[in-house]
């Protein structure tokens, strides 16, 4: 089926070439970073994780969201999703690949990465994160490929694949829980030391990922002959609405605990992000954009008339995605490091090189997504009318 990715219209190739150009410039700047060191980024002794780890954190959520298609379809027999579960699985593959790439570019000694496997450390959350991420990538590759090739042949997939499909459900929850545990178990950083961290992560994952899927489905309908279906998109929209409500609610809970308890350690990071601290207001505009977009998109999603209109739904999804990207991909990480462990405010902003490398990784992710989607859509177009049994 791979050959289906190599046949396409001029627009398809133009899109791939555009992404490749972005990817190549990312690689070019990464080589510079590899030679000079991570000093090429805006990271410092006090803010030691930044854009790269933030993107990784955000994308783990996007990857976990495939499960929002798998659960209704395989556990609750929602047959309407049968044609588009593959889109969720392929999105998961692209997202997990981006996660792995972001971790790779963030490492100080990437050539030593096998040390994590050679010296497994069971008490380290990061060890477990690398295990579950690799496992999730493998599961989605396997499930996606096997189900799609069966669809193409017009037969039901082999029975053993059901095991992996069911496995992907708790596994998806685990990748995001483990990633949340990276933050939620660190004793000194009160901004992160919260029991609801994993719940917040899951809620924002199940809102952000499916909202991206909605946008991708709308694009697919526009540029290909495959129509994911109006009803399917509406169901996704409902899922996003509930998840976004949970996400906003949980964030509100964090605000309450921090400010009602009035404990400085809990409040200060929130202050830095939303109103500034010690005269430093770098992230304030960004965080307010995130909050306003979150509130607006939630409002739009809960009003049925607005959600049913696909144009306003798309707008809500765009705002939601941006809002969560700012919150998880940036604000959450930086907030944990400011103020630092000696209560000093030292700030962070990504450098040009850092941003281009980030963009390059996103381009590689979208390249993988485009190639995989091309294969999946072509199969769907070819098997138009043939009943899918799984």
């Amino acid at each position, binding site marked *: 089926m791979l050959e289906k990715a190599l046949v396409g219209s001029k627009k398809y190739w133009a899109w791939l070439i555009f992404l490749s150009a972005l990817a190549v410039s990312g690689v070019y700047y990464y080589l510079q970073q590899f030679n000079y060191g991570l000093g090429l980024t805006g990271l410092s*002794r006090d803010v030691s994780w930044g854009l790269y780890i933030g993107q990784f954190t955000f994308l783990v959520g996007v990857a976990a969201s495939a499960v929002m298609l798998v659960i209704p379809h395989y556990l609750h027999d929602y047959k309407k999703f049968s044609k588009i579960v593959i889109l969720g699985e392929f999105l998961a593959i692209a997202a997990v690949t981006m996660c792995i790439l972001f971790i790779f570019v963030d490492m*100080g000694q990437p050539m030593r990465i096998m040390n994590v496997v050679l010296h497994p450390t069971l008490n380290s959350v990061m060890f477990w994160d690398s295990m579950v991420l690799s496992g999730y990538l493998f599961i989605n590759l396997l499930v996606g490929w096997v189900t799609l090739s069966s669809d193409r042949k017009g037969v039901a997939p082999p029975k053993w694949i059901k095991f992996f499909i069911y496995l992907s459900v708790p596994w998806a929850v685990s990748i995001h829980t483990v990633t949340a545990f990276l933050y939620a178990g660190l004793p000194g950083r009160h901004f992160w030391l919260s029991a609801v961290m994993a719940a917040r992560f899951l809620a924002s994952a199940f809102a952000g990922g499916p909202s991206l899927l909605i946008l991708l489905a709308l694009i697919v309908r526009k540029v290909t002959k495959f129509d994911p279906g109006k009803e399917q998109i509406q169901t996704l929209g409902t899922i996003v609405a509930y998840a976004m409500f949970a996400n906003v609610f949980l964030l509100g809970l964090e605000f309450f605990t921090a400010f009602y308890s009035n404990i400085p350690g809990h409040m200060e990071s929130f202050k830095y992000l939303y109103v500034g601290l010690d005269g430093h207001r770098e992230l304030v505009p960004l965080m307010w954009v995130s909050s306003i977009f979150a509130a607006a998109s939630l409002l739009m999603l809960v009003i049925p008339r607005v959600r049913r209109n696909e144009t306003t739904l798309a707008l809500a999804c765009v705002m939601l995605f941006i809002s969560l990207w700012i919150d998880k991909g940036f604000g959450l990480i930086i907030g944990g490091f400011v103020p630092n462990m000696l209560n000093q405010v030292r700030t962070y902003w990504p450098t040009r090189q850092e941003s281009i490398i980030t963009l390059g990784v996103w381009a590689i992710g979208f390249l993988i997504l485009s190639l995989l989607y091309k294969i999946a859509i072509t199969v769907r177009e070819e098997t138009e009318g043939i009943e899918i049994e799984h």
Partner: protein
Amino acid sequence: MSMDRRKFLKIAGISSILGLGATAATAVDNVWVRGLKPPQVEPNKEALTAQHWAMVVDMSKFKTEEDFQKTISACHTTHNVPDFRNPDGSVDIKDEIKWIWKAKYENAFPDQDNPYMEEKIKEMPFIVLCNHCENPACVRVCPTQATFKRKQDGIVMMDMHRCIGCRFCMAACPYGARSFNYRDPRPFIKSENREYPTRTKGVVEKCTFCTERLAFGKLPACVEAAPKGGLIFGDLADKNSEVRKVIETSYTIRRKPELGTGPSVYYLIGGNEHA
């Protein structure tokens, strides 16, 4: 038995992988895996040993700026710690590496807020360094055990060879005791100590309680360079050690004790005559 080409290739591929894997897995008795054990290796006879190395900081003995500079630079010079200060004296905080440094009371002990306390203590600098915790968060999170707690004496050690530079330990440390090499440190090493290695870019480093000096019967560099009685170093598990006696008789505080890390660096409050 007929078999199509695809099936043949699949079986051939999996067999080769299994074959290679089995070869590697059964090559157990080679020097890589064996490692060195006593009696082929021994500890130094002159080494200073303890069950639990700890330090008491008596800031009342640090009177001049020179006292601080001597203590800090003894450590940084011995260990080839790079100096990122600009010619005008300002520090490029971004890439800064420090193993031991000065911090004001409100920064060293942020949760011990006391707005009306003695002005002198509010303003004076405190020596801060890695606390070599009894329950170190950094060790808990390291995915490769590049940072680990030595069983013999409780020192939280760094294995620069194994560090992958993920900086999880820097996020975990509640005391900001760790530094990362964001660039090659060698051009910034002001005076080289040829008996100790440097580091390379991409690894984390921190105070190691001078294990390389303890192994040869010498006290840590900072303890030796500090004004007399300023830094007291000894075995907390030894009832007769100076550190134990000071802590049992005078009031000492530790940084962020509520976090459960069990720091081994104690700060004497009120000064004492133990010198």
